[in-house]
């Protein structure tokens, strides 16, 4: 048998095998088809639950992204010359307390208190020297 005849015979064999196979697929009983259907639904449910698992983290992810963006904008506006890591952690702790938020609202007042304190300190430290004399 030459190569061409062999290929033709192989193709005919494969074609017959395919027809028999397809007939056996068509002949699958109802119970088996039902089981396949249940398996398919389980797989599709997995697709849905996988999507929901991802979706349930979406709000938390959005909040986290917003928080990071706000922090970047805020620290950028402060123009701090040197940003050391412990300092950033301390800043975060301060920022995350409610008292600090209230303090930020009255930042001008606290600046004035601070300035006033420095003036008072300088007066208080000068007075004893004057008394000694």
């Amino acid at each position, binding site marked *: 048998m030459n190569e061409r005849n062999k290929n033709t015979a192989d193709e005919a064999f494969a074609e017959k*095998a395919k027809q*028999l196979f397809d*007939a*056996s697929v068509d*002949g699958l009983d109802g119970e088996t088809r039902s089981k396949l259907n249940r398996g398919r639904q*389980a*797989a*599709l449910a997995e*697709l849905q639950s996988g*999507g929901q698992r991802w979706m349930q983290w979406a709000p938390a992810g959005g909040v986290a992204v917003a928080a990071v963006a706000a922090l970047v904008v805020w620290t950028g506006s402060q123009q701090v010359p040197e940003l050391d890591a412990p300092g950033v952690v301390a800043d975060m702790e301060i920022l995350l307390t409610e008292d600090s938020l209230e303090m930020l609202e009255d930042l001008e007042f606290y600046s004035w208190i601070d300035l006033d304190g420095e003036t008072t300190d300088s007066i208080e430290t000068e007075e004893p020297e004057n008394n000694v004399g």
Partner: protein
Amino acid sequence: MNACAASFAVSCIASDRKGVDTLQREARLNRFFTDVEKRALRIAEISIRDRDEALDLVQDAMIKLARNYADRPEDEWTPLFYRILQNRIRDWQRRQMVRNRVMVFFGRGSEDDDFDPVAAAPDPAGRAPDEELQSHEAMVSLQGAIAELPGRQREAFMLRTFEGLDVTGTATAMGCSEGSVKTHYSRAVHSLRETLGEHWQ
């Protein structure tokens, strides 16, 4: 305020779009599974000679495809699905071999001895009894011969002939080169023709 409203509207539209995409993908996957599941079952069944186990393997393969590869292009699903299924079949066969060795060690024979290919073969529908019987017998002979092939030849033959994958798709499904697929397939056809002989031609 307007910026917030616009941002909310955009996120709602994006969320709706994502929901639509998920539904469309689910519908496409459903069509794919519906198309492939029966052939996959028969291929698995011929490989492991147990329909219930084959059903479990096909379901596992569908779940894994849905979980890990649903985002891949649709034309990749068929070779990916069969790659998963073939891996499951090989794992199952390895476990069976170990189990059989243990059974033999403890003096119990293999359960495969009880396998009856005639009983396990499906009933073709809508045919005259003579034709049905001939077809039935021919299929039983064929699947018996396929089951006797070496594993890689069996995979190549069934993926190429029964599933209709091309050489590239079969190579992806089998995890080997296209040259290996051609060699395995050619040897499988030669071996099957020799085994089945005139009785089947």
